[in-house]
């Protein structure tokens, strides 16, 4: 039974149109000058996107360099014995390192792992769970804080990383528990 797919189809097929039509429709009922108000709001889209650019450049170029330097492989080797102690297989370490840094990079890793271990492999399940249960932390920080010009992020980074690290470890155990 393809429940998730079905639910997802319904959600994307119904929720978005309902909002796209519902918001202006309700506005019209409440006598809002919908067109004028919409344009007024939409103007901001461009402004926000441009505001984000310096933050994204800063974050992405540093991450790009880091990936290109081969540091990931080194970190993987470095972490192997450490995470091995708490029962995390070495195969999923790259995912754990890359996930908070880049979204496209983590997609690549899942695809690599599928071709290397096969779709049914427990490692792929772990990596996909890691992918699905966390976000690209640094990208989200750049976009959300960049949009309002926040540079001093206080405890956002440590809190985000704590949640990420926990999710990486939890993903392994949850998958082992459900499929192991």
């Amino acid at each position: 039974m393809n429940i998730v797919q079905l639910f997802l189809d319904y959600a994307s097929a119904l929720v978005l149109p309902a909002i796209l039509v519902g918001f202006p429709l309700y506005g019209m009922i409440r006598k809002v000058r919908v067109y004028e108000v919409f344009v007024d709001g939409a103007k901001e889209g461009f402004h926000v996107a441009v505001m984000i650019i310096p933050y994204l450049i800063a974050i992405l170029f540093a991450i790009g360099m880091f990936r290109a330097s081969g540091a990931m492989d080194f970190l993987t080797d470095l972490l192997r014995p450490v995470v091995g102690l708490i029962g995390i297989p070495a195969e999923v370490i790259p995912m754990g390192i890359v996930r908070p840094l880049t979204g496209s990079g983590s997609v690549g890793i899942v695809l690599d792992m599928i071709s290397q271990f096969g779709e049914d492999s427990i490692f792929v399940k772990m990596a996909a769970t890691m992918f699905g249960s966390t976000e690209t932390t640094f990208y989200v920080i750049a976009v959300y804080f960049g949009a309002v010009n926040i540079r001093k992020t206080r405890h956002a980074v440590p809190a985000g990383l704590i949640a990420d690290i926990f999710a990486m470890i939890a993903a392994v155990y949850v998958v082992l528990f459900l499929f192991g």
Partner: protein
Amino acid sequence: MLNYIWGGLIVLSLVFALTSDITDFVQDTYRNGTPLPVTIIFEEEYHADTRRQYVEVQLSGTDLTAHYGDSTMTGNTWPGVLLQTSAGRELRFAEEASLAEPLQTICQETGQEDCRGALQGIPAGTEWQTAITFRSVRWVKMNAIAGAALDFARTAVTLALGLIGGLGLWMGLLKIAEASGMLQALVRFTQPLIRPLFPKVPKDHPALGLIVLNLSANMLGMGNAATPLGIKAMQELQTLNETEDTATDPMVMLLTMNTASVQILPPVTLVAIMGLQINQLFFSILITTGLSLIVGITAVKLLGRLKRYREVTS
């Protein structure tokens, strides 16, 4: 902390790139300047006066192993072109030829579009035993990090500009929602649930409604909608901010709830990759994301009490 991580990423890239390049240099990974034995097989026979001739290039496993000191390399035959110029004879591998490392890297680094090297001696017969010398390869990783920095800076702009459409659409819709009183109604309904996490946001503030919308979009796996909604929520929170550039407690909370991600439905990208397999992972993702969200919220609350992370008030 972001300052240290950011600086660390950049400095570490340099350190790793440099280490890797120096290792290559010391071990002479690419055998710069040393000819590699190769057999060129002519389709019919060698023509001395033709500038381009299609040939087969044969590299034997023993030669490759001896040359590069890598016993996993195996020999093969690739299509190629023999080029004769005034400077001498060159061999060019066909574009589709897939070569093993380190040949792959040598080709990427030296060829503008193709992979070529200089040949020794004069062709004879239909099978010509000769040797090929590739151009010298140095500073592979240093070039790579410089290239990546530029590439990703460009990607950043592309990404940001790509957001304009979605941002504009949602900002417009949200303005209507605000003007029509929808947002305020949403705030009244949902604030008992959401306000405990954002105690510093005043009662009935529109930011609460936007936070609810952002989190709901995330739960439904609608990443495209979640980002504009989250940005709009941040803007509302910024109106409550007494400083210009320092995150407030509610901002950090909203951000962490987004990075830890609240998801009931898996993200669309993952569904695309995993296909039907995703059904099996539904519960593992739900449990993991739920647990990490709790950890994230707890971390925000606890870290916020530390002296170094105290909220700045002017």
